[in-house]
C-alpha cells in the first residue's frame, strides 16, 4: 500500500516537474510561476466541471493553461529575454504573485469544493484493511500516459527532433529555417499544460486553495535539482524517489532512541539532547526531500541524470 501511495504521489510530482525541467532545459528559464500554473489548472478544472462535467474540464483546463502560458511567453518573457536570466527569473516570480492574487480575487481565499468525479470515487481494491482509491489509480494512469507520449513525441517525431535541435544548437536550427522562438513558445505552453494537467488531477485528490501553489512550489524545485537540471528521466526518478521516501518515512517509527536502546544504551528524558534522540523518522519525513536536496548539491551537484557541468 505504501508503495502504491508513494508511487502515485511521485508520479504527480513528476507531471509537475516534467514541465518545469522541459522549460528549463529548453530556454534556461527557471520558471518560478510553474506551480502557479498547477494551481490555475486546478481552479480552471473546478470551474469548468461546475459548468459542465469533469471530463470536459480534464481536456479544457490544460488547454486554457497552455494558452495562458503561451501568451505569457510571447508577450512578456520573450521581451525580457534580452535583459538576461535575472530579468526572466524576476518576471516569472512576479507572475506567480499576480496569479495568486487573481485566483484569490476570483475564487476567494478559502478552498473550493472541487470533487473527484462520481465515476472514479470509489475503492479499486482492498489490501489488508485499507482500500486503494480508484482516483489514485487514475492519477497514476494519466501520469504514465503522459510520460510515454512525452517520450515518444521527443524521441520519435519531427517536432521532438526540432525541439531537441533547438535546445542544443538554436542558431543552426534557425538557419535551417525553423522558427526557434515559436518552438520556445510551444515548449513553454506545453510545459504549462503539463502543470495544468497535474492541477486538474491533483486539485481534487488533495485540495484546491490559494496556498496550493506555494505548497508544491518548493518540492518541485527539489525534484528538478535532485533529478538533474533539464533531465526528464532524472525528474522521473527523483519524483518517484521523493514520493516513496515521504510515504515510507511516515510508516516507520524509527528513532535514535530506539536504535540506542537496542545497543544497550539507556536514554532518558534527562539525557543531553533528548528532544533530538526521540525524534521519529515519521516526524521528519516531510523535510527529508530538502535534506536530500542539500546532500545532493554537496555530493553530486549536477543531479542524478544531469549533464550540465558548469
Amino acid at each position, binding site marked *: 500500500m505504501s508503495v502504491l501511495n508513494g508511487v502515485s504521489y511521485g508520479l504527480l510530482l513528476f507531471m509537475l516537474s516534467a514541465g518545469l525541467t522541459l522549460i528549463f532545459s529548453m530556454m534556461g528559464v527557471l520558471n518560478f510561476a510553474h506551480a502557479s500554473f498547477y494551481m490555475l489548472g486546478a481552479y480552471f478544472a473546478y470551474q469548468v466541471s461546475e459548468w459542465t462535467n469533469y471530463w470536459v474540464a480534464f481536456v479544457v483546463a490544460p488547454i486554457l493553461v497552455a494558452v495562458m502560458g503561451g501568451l505569457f511567453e510571447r508577450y512578456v518573457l520573450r521581451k525580457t529575454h534580452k535583459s538576461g536570466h535575472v530579468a526572466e527569473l524576476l518576471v516569472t516570480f512576479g507572475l506567480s504573485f499576480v496569479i495568486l492574487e487573481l485566483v484569490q480575487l476570483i475564487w476567494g*481565499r478559502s478552498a473550493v469544493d472541487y*470533487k473527484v468525479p462520481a465515476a472514479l470515487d470509489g475503492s479499486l481494491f482492498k489490501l489488508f484493511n485499507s482500500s486503494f482509491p480508484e482516483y489514485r489509480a487514475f492519477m497514476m494512469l494519466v501520469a504514465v500516459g503522459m510520460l510515454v507520449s512525452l517520450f515518444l513525441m521527443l524521441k520519435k517525431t519531427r517536432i521532438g527532433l526540432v525541439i531537441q535541435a533547438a535546445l542544443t544548437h538554436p542558431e543552426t536550427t534557425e538557419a535551417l529555417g525553423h522558427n526557434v522562438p515559436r518552438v520556445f513558445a510551444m515548449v513553454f505552453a506545453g510545459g504549462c499544460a503539463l502543470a495544468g494537467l497535474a492541477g486538474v488531477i491533483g486539485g481534487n485528490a488533495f485540495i484546491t486553495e490559494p496556498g496550493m501553489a506555494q505548497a508544491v512550489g518548493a518540492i518541485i524545485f527539489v525534484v528538478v535539482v535532485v533529478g538533474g537540471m533539464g533531465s526528464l528521466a532524472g525528474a522521473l526518478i527523483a519524483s518517484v524517489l521523493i514520493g516513496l521516501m515521504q510515504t515510507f518515512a511516515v510508516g516507520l517509527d524509527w528513532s535514535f532512541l530506539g536504535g540506542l536502546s537496542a545497543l544497550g544504551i539507556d536514554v532518558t528524558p534527562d539525557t543531553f539532547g533528548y528532544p533530538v534522540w526521540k525524534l521519529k523518522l515519521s516526524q521528519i519525513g516531510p523535510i527529508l526531500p530538502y535534506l536530500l536536496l542539500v546532500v545532493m548539491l554537496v555530493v553530486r551537484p549536477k543531479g542524478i541524470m544531469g549533464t550540465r557541468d558548469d
Partner: protein
Amino acid sequence: MKISLKASAIAVAVSFLAAGVANAQNVKVAFIEGMSGPFGGVGQNQLKHFQYAAERFSGKQANSGVTVEIVPMDSKGSPQEALALLKKATDEGIHFVTQGNGSNVAGVLIDAINKHNERNPGKEVVFLNYAAIDPDFTNSKCSPWHFRFDAGSDMKLEGLTNFMMDQKDIKNVYIIGQNYSHGQQVSKFTKEFLAKKRPDIKVVGDELHPMGQVKDFAPYIAKMQAANADAVVTGNWGSDLALLIRAANAAGFKGKFYTFYAGVIGTPTAIGAAGADRVEMVAYWHPNSAQSQFESIYTGFKAKFNEEFYTVAAVNAVRFLVASVEKAKSTDAAPVARAMAGMKMKGASGEDIEMRASDGALQQALYVVNWTKAGGPGVKFDAENTGYGFQTVRYLMPSQAARPTTCKMPKRI
C-alpha cells in the same frame, strides 16, 4: 460680571466638549495574524470575524461610545514577523493586540508583551488571545496582560474525552497532531484523560507531523488502518485537518474523528457527505447550539461574506474590550486589564461567562457536536453549503467545563 459670565459659558462648553471626547473613544486593536502562507485563508477569515464583531458590538450599532478599530497586520504565521509587528503596533501607540492561530506565535507574543510592559510603564499592551489554546498560557506561563477567549485544550479535551468515555465502540485510539506546542499538548492530555476515564482503550498511535507541510495524508491513514484504529483524536486545524479527513474518506477509513476545528473555513467542504456521523468536534459554540443568541450574527456574517461564522471568541473579545473600556473610563491598557479581570457577561447561548481573574481564561460552555445531515431537528444550519452541519451531542455548562489552574498571577498594576 459680563466677562465672568462669558468665561463660565466657555468653561461649560469646554467641559461638555471634553465629556463628548471622553464618551466617543476610539480603541485600536492590532490584529497580528498569518494572512498569507499555508494558513492564510484561515487568517483572512478570522480578520473578517473581528471586523464584523467590531462593527456590530462597538460604536454606533452597539449604542456605545467606544468604537473598536481593527488594524490588520500580516505575520505570515511566523513568530519572528509577529514580534516585528508587535513592535510596530506599540510604536504606533496601539495598546491592544489580538492573535490566535498558532500557540507558537502566541507564546512569543506573551513573553514580548510581558517584557515590554515591564520596561514601558504607562504604555502597556494587553493581549486578547482568541484561539491559541496551549494550557500553559493560563497555568505556568500566565500573565496579567493575557486574556484568552477560546477554551484551553485541557478544557476542550476534558469535554471531548467525557463524551468518548461513553462511546462503548471505541477500542483503539490514534492520536495525530501538528508538531508544535498545541499538537503536543493535545497528545499529552488525551493520553492522560483516557487513562483515567477509559483505561481499557488502547492508544495505538501517537503521531506528530510538521505543520502545514504535508499535502498527502494517505500514508498516515494507511498507518491508522494498519493499527486498527477506530477513533482518531486530532488538534489539527486549517488545511492540515481538511487534507487529513479528505485522505481518510478517499482510503475508506471507517474510524471516527474527534476534532477541535472541524468548523474552520474549508474543512466542512473537505469532510462533506463522506464524513457524515464520523466527525465529532468540541467547541465553545456552533450555529446549531440551542437558543443561540448569535443566530443573527451568524446569518448576517454569511450574508455579508458568504463564509461561515464560527469564531465567537472574536465577538467576545470585542464585547469584553468595549465593556472594560466603558467600565475603566480609559483606553489605557492597565485600567482596562484591571476592569476585564473578573468581568461577567451573558454568553452566546445565554449562559453566564466570566473572565476568570486568577488566570485570564474565559469560563464558558462547551459543546461536543456531531457532523450530520442538516435540516432535521437540532441541525437548522448546514456548513459551507454542504447539506451537512453540526448537532449538539453533549453540552457542558461553564461550571462543568471549568478546569483548575496552577497560575500564580502576578499582581495587576
